[in-house]
């Protein structure tokens, strides 16, 4: 979202190997895909539901389909992409679990980043003020936030366990630095990023 935090952006750029095929779900203005296409020779495709952002993505020379993720990715074949990216998008969709399923269907691996609602500042803000937290990572008021399904890093890990989804890698953003994800200090992570894949596809 528009908070200027580029932690996931840089990690995703580092994770994806040159020449890979990448689908970016909720690609926004297409900046991530553009840097991957130009810097790593990636073959990329974006999906975005806001037509103004579709136009911005097109103006960057990045292929993009104007579509709503909540309607799924029908028409895209299984394992069509090496990587499917959900960069701070999952918390903004209506059907997050369905979108995750679709991600794991069309991609060999998924990369999911999201604001951690379990961050101590978020929790303490809610506890102390009794109001929905407004933090640098979650800068919106309750009524104008695009984040309609907030969840914590632990919620995500529970989902992965339940659905037998493998966590390949994890990263946390601590506000000033990134580090490998650690469950012990998960409440210190403002944002998290997980690389996931299906066990049966390994």
């Amino acid at each position, binding site marked *: 979202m528009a908070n200027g935090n580029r932690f996931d952006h840089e990690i995703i750029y580092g994770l994806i190997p040159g020449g890979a095929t990448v689908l970016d779900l909720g690609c926004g203005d297409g900046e991530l895909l553009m840097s991957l296409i130009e810097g790593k020779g990636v073959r990329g495709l974006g999906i975005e539901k806001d037509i103004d952002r579709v136009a911005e993505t097109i103006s960057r020379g990045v292929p993009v*389909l104007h579509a709503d993720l909540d309607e799924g990715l029908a028409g895209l074949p299984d394992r069509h992409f090496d990587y499917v990216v959900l960069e701070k998008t999952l918390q903004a969709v209506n059907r997050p679990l369905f979108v995750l399923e679709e991600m794991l269907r069309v991609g060999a691996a998924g990369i999911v980043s999201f604001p951690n609602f379990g961050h101590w500042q978020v929790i303490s803000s809610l506890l102390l003020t009794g109001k929905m937290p407004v933090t640098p990572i979650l800068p919106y008021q309750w009524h104008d936030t695009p984040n309609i399904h907030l969840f914590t890093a632990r919620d995500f890990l529970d989902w992965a366990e339940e659905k037998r989804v493998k966590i390949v890698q994890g990263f946390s953003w601590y506000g000033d630095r990134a580090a490998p994800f650690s469950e012990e200090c998960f409440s210190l992570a403002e944002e998290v990023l997980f690389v996931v894949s299906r066990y049966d596809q390994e």
Partner: protein
Amino acid sequence: MSDPLDAFTGKSDTKFDAPGTARSVGWTAPEKVRLADERNPLPLDCGRTIAPVDVEYETYGRLNQKRDNAILILHALSGDAHAAGWLSDPDGLGRPWLKSRPGWWDNMIGPGKAFDTTKYFVICSNILGSCYGSTGPSSPDPETGRPYGLRFPVVTVGDWVRLQARLVDHLGIRRLFAVAGGSLGGQQALEWALAYPDRVESAIIIAATARLSDQGLAFNAVARQAITTDPCFNGGNYYGGATPDRGLAVARMLGHITYLSEISMRRKFGRRFCNGYGPGFQLGVEFEVEGYLRHQGEAFVERFDANSYLYITRAADYYDAAKWGDGDLDRACRRIQSKALLVSFSSDWLYPPAQMKELALAMGRGRKRVSYANISSSYGHDAFLLEVEKLAHLVRCFLEKR
């Protein structure tokens, strides 16, 4: 605010860029060139050849030294080569209706517009089988010296594009910077990307699909039936005598219903009576929507040839991009080398967004550089001529990537 539909029907000229103004290409005059003759006839998909073939075309802007800035614009069913600017001698060409309006895509073509004529060399030609200067059913058949009528061969979108390639050759252009069109023009743009993959850098396909739906086929069938059952049709040999005006007018009325949407009709006509108050208990034109359609039909017969309507709708029926993949659209799309921009309009039910998205996905499955946008509009299929601002923005983003 004036209704954009008025601009489309020529009732209002307030929105037009006058010939001397900065954003107009100014006065234009079409060119004509013979692109097929007895020694070099044009082969057609039906197995026949045709010669001679003349093509009317217009150009705007300048071809650069590298000859790599040409954009070919493709027109729809009833369009012509006059895509932008003001015809300098409409009466001389027998097209007086073009005195009061500029070319059909003037809002997209001109200095500073989406197809910017200060940067690009823009070409538009009249399709084979039409009646605006290119060879068609009203042209003389060299075998008889009389107009072809129904002796004219059944032509296809593929034939049109093959002929356009000859025009592009004639202009000394190897590779087009872009091909672009809406509706049947969009299908020509798609055909270009499939038939001449190495000659197209980018394809802009608007309000079109890989093929017409059965619903679309049905409307075209009724339109043709209206023409061929007109008492004046006479097997297509009506030149020089009474023309099948009633049939052609009905065909056009039907067409206009398919170009609008339920909501655009409701907004424009709202079940209003022509007399302003209520039923006159008579069977003539009572509702404004009836008056509008009748006006469209009557105006159309002044400017279009019924036989051309038969041939062009038939070409629209036949078109199926999947033929390049022996019936498999995915396989067909693998031929494409250009990047592509596909634009649909939410209320278009003639070339519906869902079918355009299918085409985009077929290209996507082939890992082609395809972008697709669905513009939210209430104007139905006509939106491709009316939603200028949104469409122009997307086209500009696509052509002038940062």
